[in-house]
């Protein structure tokens, strides 16, 4: 005899421990099985794009810090590249190297957060999360040496960075790079040796590469499906064309693959930073105020620049009307766009996998809602 069951609609969020911010999912369950999902956004919408229209180009850096608040350096980098393209500013060599080092450190930090929180979503009571966050703290200490701030860095300026790294930074960076590898080894031991992690993540939320591309999903999620697409390699910005690095690919395209790709990419970022440190030379970290004034007035026009952010293609579209503030700023937010396939990932799965799949997207609500 078939039992007649009635689906139940549950609101997960906006206040929920695993929504990575303020986010609501209206989920319809049939028992434990997910029948329907409707994401509800906007709880953290601060109108950054509108605010940017009232601020000068240099002031907007502070807004970008607050978008994806686990990778502000990458946001700074994407924004500054857009400003430089729009205004035709030539960055200084040392400034570019410094911001590449900062960006790669930030990528490691962001991937550590993603990995730690994925394990947290899997139900590990904080231990792996704290191991990951402890290493992120050390990276934030490096940022503190660079610019005095840990999260809201605002380190980058048009044409370079705010100030040169202090002398102690290089030694601390060397030590930290060793520590990062050790932490990643630790995390990977936990990941590959743990039957529960493996059985929970393998074969869940599998997405075909064609579907991912059609849904504009980029970054580690796309590379976990075997598509060799990394903007650092395909469209090298800054000095990424002078760096040799491996592209991390996995063909399974499930939660495990996404997780694995992130850990390996963090490893590869260490390699990139080492190459940056080997190639950096003394010099000014940003153009003089004669070349790039405090108030930039880019010529009329628009510019779109995308970088490989920690979550995917992070793009800034700037429109200038010749004034000191952008006429319009738009952020191509990978966190929001990577959620496009949320329904495909979740429907038909079990409740237990809901937040694991959700966490494997690696999203940040500050960037989703902006």
């Amino acid at each position, binding site marked *: 005899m078939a039992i007649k069951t009635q689906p139940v609609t549950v609101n997960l969020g906006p206040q929920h421990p695993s929504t990575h911010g303020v986010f609501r999912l209206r989920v319809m369950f049939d028992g434990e099985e997910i029948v329907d999902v409707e994401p509800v*956004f*906007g709880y953290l*919408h601060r*109108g950054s*794009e*509108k605010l940017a229209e009232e601020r000068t180009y240099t002031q907007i850096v502070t807004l970008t810090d607050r978008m994806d608040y686990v990778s502000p350096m990458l946001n700074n980098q994407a924004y500054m590249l857009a400003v430089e393209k729009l205004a035709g500013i030539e960055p200084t060599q040392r400034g570019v190297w410094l911001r590449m080092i900062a960006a790669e450190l930030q990528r490691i930090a962001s991937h550590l957060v993603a990995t730690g929180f994925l394990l947290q979503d899997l139900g590990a009571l904080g231990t792996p999360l704290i191991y990951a966050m402890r290493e992120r703290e050390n990276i934030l200490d490096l940022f503190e040496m660079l610019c005095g701030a840990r999260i809201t860095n605002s380190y980058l300026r048009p044409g370079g960075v705010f100030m040169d790294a202090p002398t102690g930074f290089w030694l601390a960076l060397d030590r930290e790079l060793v520590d990062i590898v050790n932490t990643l080894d630790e995390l990977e031991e936990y990941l590959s040796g743990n039957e529960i992690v493996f059985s929970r993540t393998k074969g869940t939320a599998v997405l075909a590469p064609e*579907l991912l*591309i*059609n*849904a*504009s*999903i*980029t970054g580690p999620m796309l590379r976990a499906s075997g*598509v060799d*697409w990394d903007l650092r390699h*395909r*469209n*090298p910005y800054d000095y990424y064309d002078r760096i040799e690095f491996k592209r991390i690919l996995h063909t399974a395209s499930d939660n495990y693959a996404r997780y694995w790709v992130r850990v390996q990419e963090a490893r590869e970022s260490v390699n990139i930073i080492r190459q940056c440190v080997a190639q950096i030379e003394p010099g000014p970290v940003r153009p003089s105020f004669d070349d790039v004034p405090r108030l930039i007035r880019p010529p009329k*026009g*628009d510019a*779109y620049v*995308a970088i490989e952010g920690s979550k995917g*293609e992070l*793009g800034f*579209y700037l*429109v200038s009307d010749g004034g000191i503030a952008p*006429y*319009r700023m*738009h952020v*191509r937010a990978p966190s*929001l*766009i990577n*959620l*496009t*396939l949320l329904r495909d990932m979740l429907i038909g799965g079990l409740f237990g996998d809901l937040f694991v799949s959700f966490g494997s997207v690696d999203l940040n609500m500050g960037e989703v*809602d902006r």
Partner: protein
Amino acid sequence: MTTPWSGAALAEAIEAFAPGSTDKSHGGDVWLKPEAAFMVCEGLKSRPEFKFDLLSSVTAVDYIDHFEVVYHLTSLPKNASAVLKIRVGLGRTDAVVPSVVPIWRGADYQEREVWDLMGVRFKGHPNHKRIMLWEGFPGHPLRKDYVTYDQSIVASLAPDDGAYAAGSETAVELGTAGSQPAPGAGAEA
């Protein structure tokens, strides 16, 4: 290196399979006619010379007298990029463009965001609802003529009328008398 299509070349290539669908081209941009946009996008995705399979970004700009919807396309097989623009809502009329969600699912949330914040309607969108703000929110905030809620409240209060102005006067008087102006003192007055 991703090769950007120049506007002129792209317009020419589009005209080759969809005559009369482009408005003009300049720099790296091609302006499409709204009514032909869907057909052109379909061709850009499927035709072997373009293969624009990744829709990077959809956004819109308010140019006061019209809106401009901007599409940034990327082709993975060719490692090329292109910029499409559509002018709609001339004279601030109702701005409608065809939705490209049937072609690129990645446009789903982005078009909803454009509708929510800029007020450009996407015809044929499967779930044409606001995304960041709630249904019933007055206006579309990214428009240049949008008046924020607090501004509209202040504007609605005449300087010599209502508790707002009277309250501030009372507070000043209390302050000059040497006592601490209590919060809400104006309301009592």
